[in-house]
């Protein structure tokens, strides 16, 4: 197994890195001073690529690796992988579905509470000594607020289940209405945004869902509405989001993802109605280990000619 070349695109998990190092001939792309040169040098031995939400096998990379057989992503979202090209060339693709559903849903609710109840801001208030000078202001009730979910897949359903425990009515937008659910369906995101108080992005990123939250949607959500993005940065028109928040046309936002991570618009740093997280949706010790084991398990299965654990392509 040592002679199998595996290209890891960016650092993502120490345990995963160590295990890959043990089992394969691991090439760490981020350590290369000249990436194209590095790839060219090792192209003949690289049979697998390991990426994540931030970096995947795009067309250019796939073309540069003639011996590539499998792309195993340390994420559920695969928008950075050229799936069509993989299909064309018979390259397998695996991701990490299900195992991170709960963590991402937990974080969505955490962001809702943090924004509405101003958890981060009031923590700042205490730490700065301001509480000695006066009480912090009132914050917005979360229980009972209508939650609108874009994308009622695994993560969307998990968010709904949690929000229901807070007596939140649930509504959603999806490509097609789901027959097996009691939640209220809206046929467009603008209509959904007009009828909810908290809008959550929980769908995959595809060509169709780019900027699914645009200026019109944000205006519909309104000055008391809150946007929660636990999907992908490009789901939201980021410059429009910044101006909507700065101008007060949107009531608040809780963001875990951005269009150009790790860049975050600095205009958002001083806003007390905005909570910013560094893409930690699946960021728990427990889940990262399970995700890593899934990546390792998929690679092992592939090279032993066994059925893949979580194939997408």
């Amino acid at each position, binding site marked *: 197994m040592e002679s199998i070349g595996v290209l890891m695109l*960016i*650092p*993502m*998990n120490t345990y995963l890195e160590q295990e890959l190092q043990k089992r394969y001939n691991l090439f760490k792309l*981020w350590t290369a001073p000249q990436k194209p040169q590095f790839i060219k040098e090792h192209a003949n031995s690289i049979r697998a690529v390991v990426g994540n939400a931030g970096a995947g096998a795009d067309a250019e990379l796939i073309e540069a690796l003639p011996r590539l057989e499998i792309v195993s992503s340390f994420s559920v979202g695969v928008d950075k992988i050229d799936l069509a090209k993989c299909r064309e060339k018979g390259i397998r693709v695996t991701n990490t579905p299900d195992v991170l559903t*709960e*963590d991402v849903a*937990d*974080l969505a*609710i*955490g*962001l809702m*509470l*943090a924004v509405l*109840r101003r*958890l*981060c801001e*009031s*923590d*700042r*208030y*205490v*730490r700065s000594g301001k*509480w*000695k000078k006066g*009480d*912090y202001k*009132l*914050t*917005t*009730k*979360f*229980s*009972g607020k209508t939650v609108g979910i874009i994308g009622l897949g695994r993560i969307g359903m998990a968010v709904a*289940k*949690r929000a*229901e*425990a*807070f*007596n939140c009515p649930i509504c959603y937008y999806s490509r097609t209405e789901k027959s097996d659910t009691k939640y209220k369906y809206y046929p467009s995101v603008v209509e959904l945004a007009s009828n909810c108080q908290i809008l959550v992005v929980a769908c995959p990123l595809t060509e169709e869902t780019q900027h699914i939250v645009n200026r019109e949607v944000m205006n519909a959500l309104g000055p008391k509405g809150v946007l929660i993005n636990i999907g992908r940065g490009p789901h939201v028109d980021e410059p429009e989001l910044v101006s909507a928040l700065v101008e007060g046309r949107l009531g608040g936002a809780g963001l875990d993802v951005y269009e150009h991570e*790790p860049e*975050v618009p*600095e205009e958002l*740093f*001083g806003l007390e109605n905005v*909570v*910013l*997280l*560094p*893409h*930690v949706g699946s*960021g*728990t*010790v*427990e*889940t*990262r280990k399970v995700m890593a084991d899934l990546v390792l398990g998929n690679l092992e299965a592939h090279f032993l000619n066994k059925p893949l654990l979580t194939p997408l392509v």
Partner: protein
Amino acid sequence: MAHGIIYNHLDLPQVLVVRPPDSFSLYQSQYSHKFHFLKAWESPVPLDQFLSTNARNVQALLSCGRFPINVDLLRLLPSLRLVVTPSAGLNHIDLSECHSRGVAVANAGSVACCDVADLAVGLFIDVLRKISAADRYVKQGLWASKTSYPPGSKLKGKRIGIVGLGSIGQEVAKRLEAFGCSISYNSRNQKKSFSYPFYSNVVELSANSDALVICCGLSDQTHRLINKEVLLALGKEGVLINVGRGAIIDEKEMVQCLVQGDIGGAGLDVFENEPNVPKELFALDNVVLSPHRAAFTPETLTSMREIAVGNLEAFFSNKPLLSQVIDD
């Protein structure tokens, strides 16, 4: 509320207010056609003098939620039969002294329980998933290109020990179950209508929990209930959440445990000597601090005001109180 009519105060039932509750101006503007508020704090004379001059016939008192209603005050009010507090908390009221004087007490009942439960859950998620710490990190411009933020801890499967399974504790339990947490509790009495495992001893509850959520009121029995033994039983990975009262926890011990890593983290809305917060906590990323705002949303404050007034109205019309505190 009719305009241009001056109400004859002598016709309206008197309600003594020693110190004003939050948003007292709203009580004034909305209810001064129903009650004559006797505003003791506006008088230049000392309180006991004001009361002996003006409050001998007063039957009802509207508390501000903090000023102590104790024997020193009660003996100056010979006609008092009702104390109404807009808070859920009762630790500022000497309940047994009221009881022995035949003074009924009414509080806010369970109107605040959802907001308080929401804050408890919010603090818990924040501590486990490092939300406030990560928000600070991003807003300080520290998110560099190739680093991934240190991971937090999963909620699912965490064993939650609820201290006090009253209306707040029940709402906390309902919420955390949806995250896949398991619930156990300690309370004055076992609640037969709930199937959660009951521990009669807080140390045992703590030893079998990954997190303790303090939802009980402050009383002689719960003062310093969460002591060193309980904290050490909670353990290095354990998380402490307090939305009750600061004095339920031995604060000095808790601070030491946090600083030394004997417990894993804390989310605190209340402190022993508010608004003072032990400054050792400011250096800790595994602690989330909230300035006693769990019940403070406009909706809950309105509900608290409405139920306080509802209790006063019921009393003056000889009807049963809406949310009488039964001393048990």
